[in-house]
C-alpha cells in the first residue's frame, strides 16, 4: 500500500489560498485544520504571488519539452479526443496541493476606509486577482482586517468593495484579532464561509465534468475514464462518498472495456497502463467500501476484480508482470482489510442475500490475502527465473542500461533523453519496456517479501486458531528459507508444520516436510538429527508403490515421492551411514558427514517420540509377584516398522535394579571390544542364534531372571546396538498400557500380539513385585483381660527369634481407635473430643528383662507419643528372646486396636539389605471399673413445703431440692461392674472449691463397724456410704463437690499404687421451706392400745399462713379428731393437730393420710408413704431394741 502516492491513499481535502497579512496565517491555518472536515491552506504574503501559483500549472502544461510526444502529435490531429494517456500522474496532486478552491484576500481596514490612494490600490489588486482566478472558477473571499472593533466603517466604501469584488455580502468578512472573543468569532465565520465556498467550487467543477460524461461528447473510452475519475475525486472533495464510489466504479468498468479495444500504445505497455489504472481505481473503491463498513461488498468487489483480471495475462513470455500485479492486488487488499477490520469483528450478515456468490469466512481475514499475495509473488519469482534461464539476452540486462522513467501519464513509461540543456521524454517500444522491467525485477529480492507476508499470515492464522492454514504458511516460509540456503530458519518453520502433520497423521505431507528437514540437517551437519529424521521417514506408513520414475520432478521436495522405494532407499542410506565399519569411514563423505570414528551415536526413544515405530519394545513379566532368589520369566518383544529387515548386534535390557540387567548377544556377530559399558561384569548374558527385526513382525524373546532384592522390579529400557557406534535405546512399555503408534494406527495392517500368550499381551506389565523374605521371628502380645479406665494397663510384648537373628530391630507401636465403639453416646463424647486422646501410651518398659550394659551403649531409640511409640530392639541371636511392657492408660471406656510391628535385618553385614517386617495386632477393651451413684434423703417424718418440687422450673427437672438449714442424707454407692474383684481403698466427698465449703456442710456418718471406706468388692457387688448434708445458703444450684474413690485390683501386688477415680455429685437446689409438716407418733403401736398421732404445722415465714388439711380414714385404725379444717398458723409459730388412734390390725400399717394445702402458695403436700406408717405389735414387745425395728 505504501507504494501508492500519498494523495491516492488519503481522502482529498479542500484547498484554500490566503493572500496578504501573513501574520494572521498561522492562526487561521491552524483553525482550518481543526475543522471537521479539515481545510488545507496555502499562505502567500501578498497578492503578487497569485500569478505564480496559477501560472505554474499552465507553464508545465505548455512546456512541450516534457510533454508526451504522442500527445503532441495528437494535439495536431483533428480528433480532439485523442490523448496521450488515461490519467495524468500529477492531476490529483495538483488539485490537492496547488489549485485552491478559494482565494482569500486580506486587506487592512484602513486601506479600504482610509486614504483614497490606498483604496485605489485595493481596487487594482482585486481586479488583478479576479482576472487571474476567473478562468479557473476559483472562488474569492475578501477579508477586511480591523485593528479594533470600534473602527469606523464607511458603508459606501463597503458597498463599493463588494461591487468591485463582485461578491455577496457574506463573502466580505471582517476579521478582528484584537480581542479573544472577536477572534474566535471571526475564525469561525471564515471557516464556515470557506467550507461553503469550497463545497460550491467542487460541486460546480464536478458538475462541469459530469455533463461531459453524460453528453458522451466523445466516444473515447479513455476520456470517459478520465472524466469519471475526476467527478469521483471532486465528489470525494465534497465527502460525497456515494457519488465518488459510483463514478469510480463507472471509471473501472469503462476501463475494463478498453482491454482489447485500445490500440494507442504497444501491446504490453497498453495492458500495463490499463492494469495500473484499474489497480488504482480498485484501491479507491475498496477503501471507500471498507471505510464505509461494507465488508461484504468490499470482499465481493475484490473477488470480481480478481476474476476479471485473472485471465488478462498479456504476453505469456513476460507473465511475471502479471503475477507481480496479482500479488500486489492481494497484498494491498490484505493491508486495507487489516487496517479496517480491527473495528469490525463479526460478519453476522455474511451469506445473507448473497445466494449467488457465497462468501466464506476466510475471505474476511487479511491472512488469507497475505498468503495468496505471497503465492503469486512466488509465481512471479519462478516465472522470472524461468525467463532468465531461457533467454540469454535477459540475463545480460543490467539495471544501468537505459534511463527509463515513469512518464506524465499513470502507468506509462518513457525514455528520458538529454538534449543539451533540456530533457526530453521519448516513448519506448515494448522491447525497451520489457528490458526495463526485467532489469527492475532483477533488483528485487522477492524471497524476503514472500517470507515477510507469509510470516504475517502465519501469525494471523495462529491467532485465529486456524492451525492447518498456519502450518501451511509455516511450510511455505520454510521452503522459501530453504531456497535461500538458510537451513536454521527453515528448520524452525518446517518443525512447526511437521508437528501438526505428525499429530494428525497426514503422512504424505509429513514425508514432504521431513524430506526438507533431513536436507536442512544435512546442510547443518547435524548427524543425529539427520539420522533421526531419516529413521522417522523410513518408519512412516507409506505404502504407495507408485513411482513416476521421474525423481527430478520439481513438485516433490528433496525427500522425493512418498513411496515404498523411497523408504527403502533412505533406509539403506542411513544404515550404511551409521553401521559403517571403521575402515569405511573415509568413503562415506559423499553423504556430507565426517564423523570421528570413536564418537558413538545414541538415539533415545521415549513414549512420545516420533521414532517409536522404529523400535517398539514391549516387556512383560509372567508373574505379578515373585519370590526373591527365584527365577521368573520375562518376555521381551520388539517391533520395527522399518521397510527392510535389520540385524541387531546385541540387546541390553535395563531394570531399576541394576543387578538384574542382562545382555542378549547375537552369536553370529563378533563380540565388540567395547560392547558392554553399562552392564556390570558378571551379569547374565544370553546368546541367540540371530537377532533380526523383520518389518511388522514381533521379535519375541523369553528369558528367566532372578532378583535378590525385594520391592518393585521394573524394566526401564531396551538398548539395541547396530554396528560398533550406533545404539537405539527404547523405553520399555507394558503390553497392557501400550498405546497405538499415532501415524500407524489408521493403517490397515495385520496386527499381531506382542506375546504368544494372549492374556499376557492384554494384561502384561513391565514391572513386578519381589516379595520380602519370610520372617523367622515371633512377636507375641500377652493379654491379661480387659483394661480398666484410669489404671496403667500393662501389656507385655515378647520378641522371640526362631531362626533369624535380629539386627537393628525396631518395634513400632500404634494405637488406633476402633471406629464407632458404641460404648458411649456421641453426646457424651463431644465435650471430651478436644482432648482427643482417650487412650494413650504412658510408657514402654523395656528394661524388665536382661538389662545389660551393652544394650544401653547401642544408642537405643525410644520415642513415645500419645498413640505412637517406637522402641529399638537389641540385637538378638538365634533362639534368644526379648520382651518389654507397654503401659497404656484409658481415660474413657472404649475399645482400641493395638498394632505392633517389628522391622529387623536378618544379617548384620549387608549395608543395603532389606528389612523384614512382622505385624501383630490386638483389640483391647477399656472398661469402667466402678459405677458410682447417689441418692438424697430428707429428714424422717419432716415434710417441707418445697415450692420448686411442686412447680418445677423448666430447666431443673432432674435436680433434687434440699431444704435450707435442715439435715438431709446423701447415700453414695459404688458398684463393681467388672468381672474381676476390686479393692476399694477409700471413699470421701470433697468440695471442688471454697465456695461450696462455705455454703454447705457435709459430714460422714460414722456408722457402727465401718472402716473408713475400705472394702473388697466382688464382681457385681455394691458398696454404700452415707453422708449428712446441711445446706447453709439458699441457692438454686449448689455444688456438692465430688466423690473421690481410691481402688486397685484385688490380689495384685499390694505395693501397686491405688487408682483414684472421681465422680462428680449432681448440683442441688436449696430453698427455704415456708411450711414444715412433721408427724409425731410413737415408734410402734400395740393392738388395741390408743396412742397420740400429732401433726405439727410449723410456719417458718413472717406471714400468717392459712393451711387446709384433710385426713383420710385408715382401715386399720379408729381415729378421733377433726377430719378436715382450715387453720391459721401465726408467723414463726407452730400449730399442732392432735389425734388419738387405736390400731385394729397387726403388722406394718398405714397411718391415716394427711394432706396439707397451703392457701397462700396453693400448694398441696403429703408425707411419704414410708414415713406415715407404723408397725403394730399384737402385744407389747419384750425387747428394748424395738425402736430400732421401726427405722426401716
Amino acid at each position: 500500500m505504501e507504494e501508492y502516492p500519498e494523495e491516492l491513499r488519503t481522502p482529498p481535502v479542500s484547498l484554500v489560498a490566503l493572500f496578504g497579512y501573513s501574520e494572521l496565517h498561522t492562526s487561521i491555518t491552524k483553525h482550518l485544520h481543526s475543522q471537521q472536515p479539515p481545510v488545507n491552506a496555502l499562505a502567500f504574503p501578498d497578492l503578487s504571488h497569485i500569478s505564480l501559483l496559477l501560472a505554474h500549472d499552465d507553464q508545465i502544461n505548455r512546456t512541450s519539452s516534457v510533454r508526451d510526444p504522442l500527445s503532441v502529435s495528437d494535439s495536431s490531429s483533428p480528433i480532439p479526443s485523442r490523448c496521450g494517456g488515461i490519467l495524468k500522474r500529477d492531476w490529483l496532486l495538483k488539485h490537492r496541493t496547488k489549485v485552491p478552491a478559494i482565494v482569500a484576500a486580506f486587506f487592512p481596514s484602513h486601506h479600504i476606509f482610509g486614504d483614497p490612494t490606498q483604496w485605489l490600490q485595493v481596487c487594482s489588486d482585486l481586479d488583478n486577482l479576479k482576472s487571474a482566478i476567473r478562468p479557473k472558477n476559483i472562488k474569492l473571499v475578501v477579508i477586511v482586517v480591523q485593528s479594533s472593533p470600534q473602527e469606523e466603517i464607511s458603508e459606501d466604501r463597503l458597498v463599493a468593495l463588494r461591487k468591485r469584488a463582485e461578491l455577496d455580502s457574506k463573502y466580505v468578512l471582517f476579521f478582528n484579532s484584537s480581542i479573544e472573543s472577536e477572534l474566535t468569532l471571526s475564525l469561525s465565520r471564515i471557516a464556515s464561509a470557506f467550507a461553503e465556498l469550497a463545497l460550491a467550487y467542487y460541486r460546480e467543477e464536478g458538475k462541469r465534468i459530469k455533463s461531459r460524461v453524460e453528453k458522451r461528447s466523445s466516444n473515447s473510452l479513455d476520456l470517459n475514464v478520465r472524466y469519471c475519475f475526476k467527478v469521483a475525486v471532486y465528489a470525494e472533495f465534497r465527502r460525497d462518498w456515494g457519488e465518488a464510489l459510483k463514478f469510480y466504479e463507472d471509471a473501472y468498468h469503462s476501463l475494463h472495456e478498453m482491454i482489447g479495444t485500445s490500440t494507442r500504445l504497444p501491446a504490453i505497455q497498453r495492458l500495463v497502463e490499463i492494469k495500473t489504472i484499474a489497480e488504482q481505481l480498485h484501491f479507491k473503491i475498496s477503501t471507500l467500501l471498507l471505510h464505509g463498513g461494507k465488508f461484504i461488498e468490499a470482499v465481493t468487489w475484490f473477488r470480481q476484480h480478481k476474476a476479471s483480471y485473472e485471465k488478462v495475462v498479456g504476453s505469456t513470455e513476460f507473465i511475471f508482470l502479471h503475477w507481480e500485479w496479482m500479488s500486489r492486488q492481494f497484498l494491498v487488499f490484505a493491508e486495507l482489510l487489516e487496517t479496517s477490520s480491527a473495528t469490525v469483528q463479526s460478519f453476522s450478515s455474511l451469506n445473507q442475500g448473497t445466494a449467488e456468490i457465497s462468501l466464506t469466512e476466510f475471505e474476511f481475514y487479511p491472512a488469507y490475502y497475505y498468503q495468496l499475495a505471497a503465492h503469486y509473488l512466488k509465481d512471479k519469482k519462478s516465472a522470472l527465473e524461468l525467463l532468465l534461464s531461457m533467454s540469454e539476452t535477459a540475463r545480460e540486462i543490467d539495471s544501468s542500461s537505459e534511463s527509463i522513467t515513469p512518464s506524465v501519464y499513470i502507468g506509462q513509461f518513457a525514455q528520458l533523453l538529454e538534449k543539451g540543456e533540456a530533457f526530453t521524454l521519448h516513448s519506448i517500444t515494448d522491447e525497451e519496456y520489457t528490458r526495463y522491467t526485467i532489469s527492475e525485477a532483477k533488483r528485487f529480492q522477492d524471497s524476503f517479501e514472500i517470507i515477510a507476508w507469509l510470516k504475517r499470515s502465519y501469525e494471523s492464522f495462529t491467532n485465529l486458531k486456524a492451525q492447518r492454514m498456519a502450518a501451511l504458511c509455516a511450510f511455505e516460509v520454510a521452503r522459501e528459507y530453504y531456497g535461500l540456503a538458510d537451513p536454521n530458519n527453515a528448520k524452525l518453520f518446517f518443525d512447526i508444520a511437521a508437528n501438526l502433520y505428525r499429530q494428525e497423521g497426514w503422512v504424505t505431507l509429513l514425508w514432504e516436510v521431513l524430506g526438507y528437514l533431513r536436507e536442512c540437517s544435512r546442510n547443518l551437519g547435524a548427524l543425529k538429527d539427520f539420522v533421526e529424521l531419516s529413521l522417522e521417514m523410513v518408519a512412516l506408513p507409506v505404502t504407495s508403490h507408485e513411482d513416476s520414475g521421474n525423481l527430478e520432478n520439481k513438485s516433490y521436495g528433496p525427500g522425493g515421492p512418498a513411496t515404498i522405494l523411497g523408504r527403502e532407499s533412505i533406509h539403506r542410506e542411513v544404515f550404511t551411514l551409521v553401521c559403517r565399519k571403521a575402515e569405511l569411514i573415509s568413503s562415506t563423505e559423499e553423504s556430507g558427514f565426517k564423523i570421528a570414528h570413536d564418537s558413538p551415536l545414541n538415539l533415545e526413544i521415549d513414549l512420545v517420540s516420533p521414532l517409536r515405530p522404529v523400535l517398539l519394545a514391549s516387556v512383560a513379566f509372567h508373574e505379578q509377584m515373585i519370590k526373591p532368589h527365584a527365577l521368573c520369566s520375562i518376555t521381551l518383544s520388539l517391533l520395527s516398522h522399518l521397510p527392510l529387515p535389520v540385524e541387531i548386534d546385541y540387546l541390553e535390557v535395563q531394570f531399576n535394579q541394576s543387578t538384574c540387567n542382562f545382555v542378549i548377544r547375537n552369536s553370529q556377530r563378533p563380540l565388540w571390544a567395547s560392547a558392554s559399558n553399562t552392564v556390570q561384569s558378571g551379569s547374565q548374558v544370553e546368546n541367540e542364534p540371530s537377532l533380526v527385526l523383520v518389518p511388522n513382525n514381533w521379535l519375541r524373546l523369553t528369558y528367566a531372571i532372578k532378583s535378590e532384592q525385594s520391592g518393585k522390579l521394573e524394566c526401564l529400557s531396551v538398548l539395541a546396538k547396530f554396528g560398533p557406534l550406533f545404539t537405539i535405546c527404547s523405553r520399555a512399555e507394558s503390553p497392557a498400557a501400550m498405546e497405538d503408534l499415532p501415524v500407524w494406527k489408521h493403517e490397515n495392517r495385520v496386527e499381531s500380539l506382542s506375546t504368544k500368550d494372549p492374556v499376557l499381551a492384554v494384561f502384561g506389565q513391565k514391572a513386578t513385585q519381589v516379595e520380602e523374605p519370610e520372617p523367622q521371628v515371633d512377636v507375641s502380645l500377652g493379654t491379661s483381660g480387659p483394661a480398666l479406665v484410669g489404671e496403667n494397663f500393662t501389656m507385655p510384648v515378647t520378641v522371640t527369634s526362631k531362626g533369624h537373628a535380629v539386627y537393628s530391630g525396631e518395634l513400632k507401636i500404634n494405637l488406633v481407635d476402633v471406629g464407632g465403639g458404641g460404648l458411649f453416646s456421641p453426646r457424651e463424647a463431644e465435650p471430651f473430643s478436644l482432648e482427643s486422646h482417650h487412650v494413650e501410651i504412658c510408657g514402654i518398659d523395656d528394661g524388665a528383662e536382661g538389662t545389660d550394659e551393652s544394650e544401653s551403649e547401642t544408642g537405643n531409640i525410644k520415642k513415645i507419643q500419645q498413640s505412637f511409640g517406637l522402641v529399638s530392639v537389641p540385637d538378638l541371636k538365634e533362639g534368644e528372646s526379648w520382651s518389654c511392657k507397654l503401659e497404656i492408660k484409658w481415660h474413657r471406656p472404649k475399645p482400641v486396636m493395638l498394632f505392633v510391628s517389628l522391622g529387623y535385618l536378618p544379617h548384620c553385614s549387608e549395608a543395603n539389605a532389606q528389612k523384614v517386617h512382622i505385624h501383630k495386632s490386638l483389640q483391647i477393651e477399656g472398661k469402667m471399673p466402678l459405677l458410682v451413684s447417689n441418692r438424697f434423703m430428707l429428714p424422717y417424718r419432716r415434710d417441707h413445703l418445697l415450692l420448686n418440687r411442686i412447680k418445677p422450673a423448666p430447666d431443673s427437672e432432674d435436680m433434687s431440692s434440699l431444704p435450707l438449714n435442715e439435715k438431709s442424707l446423701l447415700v453414695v454407692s459404688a458398684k463393681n461392674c467388672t468381672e474381676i474383684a476390686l479393692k476399694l481403698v477409700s471413699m470421701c466427698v470433697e468440695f471442688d472449691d471454697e465456695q461450696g465449703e462455705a455454703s454447705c456442710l457435709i459430714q460422714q456418718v460414722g456408722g457402727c463397724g465401718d472402716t473408713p471406706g475400705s472394702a473388697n468388692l466382688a464382681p457385681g457387688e455394691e458398696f454404700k456410704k452415707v453422708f449428712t448434708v446441711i445446706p447453709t445458703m439458699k441457692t438454686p444450684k449448689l455444688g456438692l463437690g465430688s466423690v473421690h474413690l481410691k481402688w486397685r485390683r484385688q490380689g495384685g501386688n499390694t505395693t501397686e499404687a491405688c487408682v483414684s477415680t472421681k465422680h462428680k455429685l449432681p448440683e442441688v437446689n436449696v430453698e427455704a421451706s415456708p411450711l414444715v409438716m412433721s408427724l409425731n407418733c410413737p415408734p410402734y403401736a400395740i393392738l388395741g392400745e390408743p396412742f397420740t398421732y400429732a401433726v405439727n404445722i410449723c410456719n417458718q415465714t413472717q406471714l400468717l399462713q392459712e393451711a387446709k388439711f384433710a385426713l383420710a380414714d385408715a382401715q386399720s385404725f379408729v381415729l378421733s379428731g377433726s377430719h378436715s379444717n382450715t387453720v391459721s398458723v401465726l408467723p414463726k409459730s407452730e400449730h399442732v393437730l392432735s389425734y388419738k388412734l387405736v390400731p385394729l390390725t397387726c403388722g406394718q400399717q398405714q397411718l391415716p393420710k394427711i394432706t396439707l394445702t397451703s392457701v397462700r402458695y396453693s400448694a398441696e403436700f403429703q408425707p411419704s408413704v414410708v414415713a406415715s406408717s407404723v408397725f403394730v405389735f399384737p402385744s407389747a414387745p419384750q425387747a428394748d431394741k424395738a425402736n430400732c425395728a421401726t427405722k426401716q
Partner: protein
Amino acid sequence: MIVCVAVVGHQNNPLYIQSFTDADDALKLHHIVHCSLDVIEERVNNPKKSGTTLNEAFLGLLYPTLNYKVYGYLTNTKVKFILVTTDLDVRDTDVRTFFRKFHAAYVDAVSNPFHVPGKRITSRNFAQTVSNIVGSYGLN
C-alpha cells in the same frame, strides 16, 4: 472438473484422498484439503459467527484458493468429505448430488465387515465407484 476428493476421519486424519489430475500437484491438493479442515472446524464450532445454519450435512463452499474451489460435507459420524474443483461456475445442486452419491459409496465401503472403522479405506471397489462418480459429475 473435480481434481481431488478426500475422506477425512473425525480425528482429522486422512482416510482416503485421491486426485484426478495429470499434473503432479497431488501434494498441493493435499495441502488444500488439509487447510480446508480449518474452515470446517470454524464453521462447525462458530456457526453463529459465520452466519450459516448447520442443519444439513452439506457445508457449501469452504474457500476459494488460487484456481480451486473447495466444498465440504460433514456426516453424522463427523467424517468429512472434501471436494476440490477447478470449475469457475459451480452449481450448488451438482455438488450436492455429488456428495450424496459419494456418501452412499462411503457407507457401502465402511459397511464391509472386513473394514475396521477409523482405518484408511483401501477398498478398490470404493476407488472405482468414486472415480465413476467423479466422471459423471456435472454431466446431467
